[in-house]
Structure formats: C-alpha cells, structure tokens
C-alpha cells in the first residue's frame, strides 16, 4: 500500500492478508493474557525487530513511527502511573501518587499497546488494501458486490477530503460578506454535512451505474490478483509463535521488572 516509503519488498508481502488478520486477532488475545511485564518487554523489542526486518520501510519513517507509538503509549499509560493504587511510594506530588505497582502496571499496559501497534504496522506496511478484499473474496467467500463496494468507497475518501477543503475555502472568503449565523454553529455544520453527503451520494449512485455498465454483477468472475495460502503463511505463523515463546524465555533470563505479575 504505502509503496512510497518502502525501499524493498519482503516475504511478508506474500503472506495472505487473511492469515495476517487472523494472527493479529490471535496476538491480541495472547497479549491480553500475558501478565508478566518481563515477557511483554521482550515481546515489544522482538516485534520492533520483526517490523524493522519485514516491513521494508525506510529507516527514518520507521524511526518516526516508533517514536510516535512510544510517545502515545507513554501518554496513555500516564493515567495508570499517576493515579493507580500501590504500597511502595516512588513519588508524591499533590494528587499525583506514583507507586512502584502503578508504574509497572502503567508500563505493562503501554507495552501491550506497543506490541499490537508494531504488529499492526507490519500488516499495514506489507499489505495492499485491494489484496485484503481479493483475499476475502477468494479465500473468505465474501460476495464480490461487498468487496468492490468497499474498494470503491475507499477511493472516494480522498475525493471527499478535497471537497471539504474547497468548502472551507469558500466559507472563509464569503464570511466577511454575510451574517455569521449562516456559517457558524449548527447551521454551518449542517449545510457542510448536507453538501458533502449529497455530493457523495450522487457520486456513489453514478459510480454504481458505471460499475454495472461495465458488466459487473455478483456472479462468477476471474481475479486479477490471485491470493492463496502458501507455505509462507505457515512460516509466518511459526515465526510469530516462536517470537512469543522466545520473549517468554528471554523474560526468565533477563528481567528488568521486579514482579512477574502486573495485576
């Protein structure tokens, strides 16, 4: 999908999108049941290494992405760190009360998010959106009419964004001429939404006609992109399972956190 920021393709590109999505679901459930912060610590690092190796994304974009994820992870954990319960006080400042337990719990939650973000990013970087739908039609028995409707809808998003920009410009210039009641508050909001909706509905209707005029129906068809399951899917599953297991082993060997259960 994001070819512009990648500099090489990797075997992960060939893995079936459905496999990736199923692994993501599996990983989510696994991560929720990992209570050992040491395990998660190593898993985050291994996931970052996997992302770096398998995404093929240029290093500066990767760095930017990692920093962003860590930053947001940190922010989301702050609430837990500052106000959580615990007995061993590390710092007290007004209503902020950081305890060792709350700090560990906060970081634990952050690492859960980070692991899933890294894996999610790996999927996004190595999967073309169209392949997801092609795969869902071919391996997942999704009806073509839904798949193509979704793909067409995705194509509309930048068009709608562009229209919104123009709409805002027109308002900026008209603002000095007219009473502000027309463009502020509920009225301004509703006319914006009505315009965007009516444009989109009209375009969708026309596109539907265009699609049918090109012979599209819900019946038998061939597929330009052929997606299938291959040995790469199995390898990919094994790699992820091994990553989770080795993270657990590494957690026994090197434990940066003093506890084995963050709950």
């Amino acid at each position, binding site marked *: 999908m994001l070819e512009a920021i990648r500099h090489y393709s990797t075997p992960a590109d060939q893995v079936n999108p459905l496999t990736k999505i199923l692994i993501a679901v599996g990983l989510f459930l696994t991560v929720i049941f990992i209570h050992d912060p040491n395990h998660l610590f190593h898993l985050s690092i291994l996931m970052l290494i996997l992302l770096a190796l398998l995404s093929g994304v240029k290093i500066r974009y990767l760095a930017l992405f990692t920093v962003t994820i860590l930053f947001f992870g940190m922010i989301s954990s702050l609430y837990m760190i500052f106000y959580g319960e615990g007995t061993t006080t590390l710092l007290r400042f007004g209503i902020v009360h950081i305890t060792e337990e709350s700090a560990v719990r906060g970081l634990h939650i952050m690492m859960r998010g980070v692991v899933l973000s890294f894996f999610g990013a790996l999927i996004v970087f190595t999967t073309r959106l169209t392949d997801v739908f092609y795969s869902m039609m071919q391996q997942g028995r999704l009806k073509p009419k839904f798949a193509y409707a979704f793909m067409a809808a995705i194509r509309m998003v930048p068009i709608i964004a562009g229209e919104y920009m123009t709409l805002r410009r027109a308002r900026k210039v008209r603002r000095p*001429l007219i009473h502000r009641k027309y463009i502020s508050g509920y009225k301004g909001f509703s006319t914006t939404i009505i315009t965007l909706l009516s444009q989109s509905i009209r375009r969708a209707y026309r596109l539907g006609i265009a699609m049918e*005029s090109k012979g599209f129906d819900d019946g038998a068809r061939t*597929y330009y992109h052929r997606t299938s399951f291959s040995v790469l899917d199995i390898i990919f599953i094994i790699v992820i399972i091994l990553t989770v297991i080795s993270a657990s082993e590494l957690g026994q060997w090197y434990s940066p956190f003093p506890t084995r259960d963050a709950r």
Partner: protein
Amino acid sequence: MGIAVRNLRLKFPEAQARLFTDLDLKIEDEEKVLIVGPSGSGKSTLLNVLGGLIPNVINVPMKADQLALPDSAAYVFQDPDAQFTMPTVAEELAFVMENRQVRAEDMDQQLKEALGTVGLDVDPITAIQTLSGGMKQKLAIASALLQQADTLFLDEPTSMLDDGSASHLWETIQQMWKGRTVVIIEHRVEDIWDKVDRVILMDDAGRIDRMACPDEMLKNHRDALDAFGVWHPESWCNAPEFSEIEAQPDVLLEARHLMVNRGSRQLLTIDALDIRKGEWITLEGDNGTGKTSLLLALMRLIPSKGDVLFKNRKVRKPKHYGGALYPVFQNPELQFITNTVFDEVFINLELHFDKGEAERRAGALLDRLGLGKVGHLHPLEISTGQKRRLSVATAAGGIPEIIILDEPTFGLDQRHAFRLLEMLHDMVKSGTTIIMITHDEEIKVRYPSRRLRIEEGKLVEEAGFDA
C-alpha cells in the same frame, strides 16, 4: 443491425409529464451520431435507454413498440471521478476483464494493448487519483475497449476537460471508433461536429426536433440550433460584442515577490503584478501550471511567500479583504451555504442594503441569469449549468470590487454563456475588476482588456494586450 427504437414512452416516477412520447430513432451499424439539445431535453436518458441501462440498471418505467439494442455497449461518462471502482490503472482495467471472466494470465497483455490504443502512456500501477482529467477519460475509453463493445455511448466525455485535452481526447476516440457504432452527447462540439455522420437536435420537451448531416444542419438549420441555445461551430458569430472599456488608474491589487509552491515544488514566482480598477483580465496557461494556485495565493487561501496588497494595505488572511474580493470556484456545489437558490444570493446583499432593496436586487440578478423560476429550490437540486450560473450570481450584486472566476463558462449552453459574458461586461463597466481563468480561445481574443499567461513559472503579459 444497429439500433432501432419505435414509439418509446418514458416517464420518471416523480415527474408530472412523460419525458418521451412516441419517440422514434434508428441508428445504423457503425454510424457515428451526435445528439445535441438544451439541458433537460432528455439526451442522457435517451442514451441510457439505447444502451440498456434503463430499465435494467436504472429503474424507470418505459415502454416501446420496438426496441432493438446493441448486444454489447460501453459507456464513457462525464465525471471522471464517478466511473472508476479501483485505486490503480491496472486494477481498474482488470475489473472490466474480471467481469468478462478473462483469464488472469491474459490480463496484463490485454490491458497494455488497451492503454497503447488510447495512448495513455503511464505505468499500470499508477494511482488513478494522480491522473489528470484528460488521462482519466482516456482510461475510461481503454476500459470501454476492454469491454469489447461494438457500440460506444459517450455522455459528455469532455465536459470536465480543458480545450487542449478535449481535442486530444476526440482524436483518440476517432482512432478507435472504426468498426463501431458511436453515439455522442456533447456541448462542446467544435472538434467533433464535422467528423460524425449525423447530428440529432432534441428540443426541450424530449422530442427529436430534427436531424441532418453536420454540413446541412449548419447550413439549413442554424436558426433552430441557436433557438435552443445549442453550441455549434459557428456559435461565436452570435457572440455579444462590447465597446472597449478603459481601465481606471487606481491600482486595487498588488503582488510583490510572490512565490507559490505546490508541496515542495516551486510553481511560480511573480516579481510585480498590479491590477487596476475596471480591468477584465484573463489568466491563461497549460494544465498544472498553477493558475488556480495563483488565484488561491492572491486570496491568501494557500500559504505563499511575498506580499499581497489591496488598496495599499497588506493582506495576510482572506478576511483582510473584507469581502471586496470574491471568488467563484470551478466546482459550484462546494460554495453554496443556504437552503434555497434565492437565499444564496440574498445573504450576500442583506448586510449592505435594507431588506426590500436586497430582495429586489437578488430577484433581479436571478432573473437575469435565468434562475428566477428555481429560486425556491435547494441549490444542490438544480442542474449543473444552473449551479454554475448561481455561483456567478452570488459574486455579483455590486459589493465585491474584484471578482475571481475559475472557468465560469464551463458547461454552459450558448445562450447562457453569452448572457453571462454580457453580465461580466456590465460589471466591468460599473468598475468591478474581473480576473478569470479560461481555456476558451474565443473568449480570450474577444473580451479581456488584458491577458496574463503563466509560462515556465513566470507570469507574462500576452503581446498586444498592454492595456
């Protein structure tokens, strides 16, 4: 075999009256037919019936005593953005072949051939979104080719293209239309008029008024074409002629060392530009040279370096103009903010005149542009040509001192285009400055007092136009 329709009757469920009553039409095999007529005459509906879209895809009640339609028909529609399903060129063309169940192995070969035939020289993995309007329409033709249709229906394929791209597209179409039946609806006919076998004129009540070969139509039926306001190759003989207007000495708008960028690329630089009161300026230049960007930069709607001065005062934000500079963008739908056509014009006037006067002026403006009858409708409900006229009407009314127009005559029929030009002339006469982007050669040579052209990132004055 061709196409034959006898006694076609059709009525839109929400309409008062039938659109077609006992309409007969025969089109020979491999004939090239051009259908012209005022907007609302049912041209597009007829095209949809001929290609079988009505009633199979679009559910409209209709009946006919005889209906012989082509086995395989392909359409090219006017809006490039509303006819593609997939994100990239290859996937879009593959979509058509998938529908026909072409084997996946053969697809790449076939899509390359189709791209070659229409002369669309891009990498198949290019995103459709990055193509220009002309390229998108070529892609639509390539996809029609891949449908292996023996009949092509073209529904105003060039209405969103500039002159250059439009003539180029017609050349492409002529190269591939041999051996095919082609039915065209088009407003801008200068490139295609003498290439077709027959011209059909429809009236504003869904009837076929007359038909003839192009030469004869022009020679014997020009009055009828003019009466329905339809463009034809000699339309400009009827164009209004105005006496020259001297621009006034006061400089309204100045740009100094203005630099306009698109992304990181520098589009154009202007050392000094002075625009005076009462000038009628056209801004010209090829697609992508930054005409629209320049206007947006002058309005301070996009970031740019350098100074813009209005009446000797620096302008940093659009609101610093205080409404004295007013744009009419290319896409009229996106600048309406009220629920009725009348209000759209009225709200611009209500703060400047007392209520009665504002209402009177708004009504007069709408009447002048032929919008009086639709005043109570929602601005998004009216036809495309009406929307364009309405967007110009919001600019008029005597308040803005500079009006900026992006392709104001696009998609208007002859009658309304000329009426619009008359209105612009009157505005200039009363001291309003007009800056307009236009691709229309006829307008460029006839009306402006000054012509500006963007060439290689610089603004140049067109020779002989140093007013």
